[in-house]
């Protein structure tokens, strides 16, 4: 498997003086194509911050994030936005779907941001809604969908631009155990392929079994990296 991304000695802190908190302390890791990589750990361990650093959302204080051999944090503000748009697909914890748009319009957003034609974007978005099994609900607003369905819409929106890297932040936090497991099964079987890498931040041990590798974090540092989805102890 080729290297999808490499994080090198990432450091990030928040606040000033006495209130300064080291969120990430010298973290380095690699993620590979075709891999479903979990970042796990207790609340406040720095999982979400790490995900933000590697996906071009939050700039590290030091260290680098290499994607296809180039450091994304050496890009300008517009280029980093383009990087996120073209290379990364996001699934947020609360989905952040637009209740005033229809489901298919929500899915089409990344394509519209890429300045694709409106109707063409909706057509492609429809295809991806079919992939997640929600084509029949395309014209409904997301508020009319169940939590699991909204999660699938968020996934369709994340993959519609065919990004290489998919990042999921606590994808099962708002779902019951069965729905969460089913969706992650779907992601692993239908979305993941050998040209894509998926990084998932979670502390939901019900879905650990689906991970190819797991990075375990504590106090802003990686304390363990394991193959497969089992954490011992």
């Amino acid at each position, binding site marked *: 498997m080729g290297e999808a991304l490499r994080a090198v000695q990432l450091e990030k802190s928040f606040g000033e003086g006495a209130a300064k908190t080291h969120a990430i302390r010298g973290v380095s890791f690699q993620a590979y194509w075709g891999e479903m990589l979990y970042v796990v750990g207790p609340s406040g361990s720095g999982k979400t*911050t790490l995900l*933000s650093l590697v996906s071009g*959302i939050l700039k590290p204080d030091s260290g680098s994030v290499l994607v296809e051999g180039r450091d994304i944090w050496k890009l300008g503000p*517009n280029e980093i936005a*383009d*990087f996120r748009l073209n290379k990364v697909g996001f699934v947020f*914890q609360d989905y952040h779907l*637009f209740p005033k748009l229809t489901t298919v319009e929500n899915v089409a*957003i*990344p394509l519209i941001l890429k300045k694709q034609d409106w109707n063409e974007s909706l057509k492609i978005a429809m295809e991806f809604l079919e992939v997640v099994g929600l084509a029949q609900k395309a014209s409904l607003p997301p508020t009319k969908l169940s939590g699991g369905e909204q999660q699938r819409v968020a996934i369709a929106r994340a993959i519609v631009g065919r990004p290489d890297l998919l990042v999921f932040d606590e994808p099962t936090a708002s779902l019951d155990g069965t729905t969460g497991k089913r969706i992650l099964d779907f992601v692993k079987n239908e979305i993941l392929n050998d040209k894509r890498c998926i990084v998932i931040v979670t502390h939901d041990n019900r879905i650990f079994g689906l991970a190819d590798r797991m990075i375990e974090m504590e106090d802003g540092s990686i304390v363990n990296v394991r193959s497969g989805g089992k954490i011992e102890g």
Partner: protein
Amino acid sequence: MRGIFKIALKLLVNDRGKFAALVVGITFAIFLIVQLTSIFSGILAKASSTVINTGSRLWVIDPSVQNPLNTIPLPDYVLDAVRSVKGVEYAVPLYSGIGLVKLNSGAYQPATVLGLDDTSLLGRPELIQGHIEDIYSNNAFIVVKDQEYAKLGNPPIGTTFEINDHRGVIVGIGHVPEGSLFGIPTLYTTYSRAIQYLPNTRFTIAYVLVKPKSEAAIAGIIDNVAKIGYRALTDREFEREISNYYKYQTGVGTNIMMMTFIGFLVGLSISGQTFYTFVLENLEKFGALKAIGAKNSELVSMILFQALFSSMVGYGLGVGLSALLIATGKRFVPNYTADIGFWNLALAFVLVLLIAGVSCLVAVRKVIRVQPFEIFRG
């Protein structure tokens, strides 16, 4: 339409409550602004009614005259001097004064009396009843049928009345483009009868009306009239002078301007607050867009588009509502005056753009500052 504008539009109009509040606020502000400025325009037009109705291209006045009510009589030699100025085709006197009319009911009613040059009758009203040559018959007056006409008891042709203890007879009923500002009826007669019937000072010419031989001759006439110590003004200049008098020396302009500003502030506060709330409620969504890959410039253009769209809808509705009210007012309300013109609309347009700009300014700052990381943190 570009896709992001379509998204912006859907986010805006599908939030019906906010959109309605936004549009109502702007509509109300534009309605107030257009109403007030139109009423002011109407007042100014009425204030210039003598100039508009007479239709003379050039007016010679005493340099101290600021409005048609305060005419300063000109000596007869001024008329002769103006007639001898190069470029003048003809020049005639116009009398303007106030006469006290005693109606058949016994009531008294002041009226503006305009005395037209006996020979040319320059500045005469368009007659809707009667014949203009009847103005030369004994005691003849033409009454203007405007909103003040009823104050003379709606006199038909043949009605007799007293004016300053002289007998008067209505021989014609006329129509003029612009009614009088001061709420009194208007009577036309000949210059010679006017100065005979109404009490006068030593000099009796209120204005000398001049017909230039050509437009090119106007500048020369103005210069030559100035040399004899008087002012010649074109009709536009005279109207502007009258407007300036009412704007700056009577308090009317200042008060209307203040009320217009209050209308602007009302619109700004309603739409600014609503738009700010709208953006605040959608801040997370804008953050999500940013995380997905939208650039700040794109988000700013979306917000500007939303502000501009609601402003234009509000502008259209506000202007439409004003036009409707003005049309209704003119039809049913006596003495109602309001004129919508290019400048009213242009001023309202500039103010609505300001409302849009200021409303989204604070919102834009919020959106630029929102960090996509905040979306991740939840």
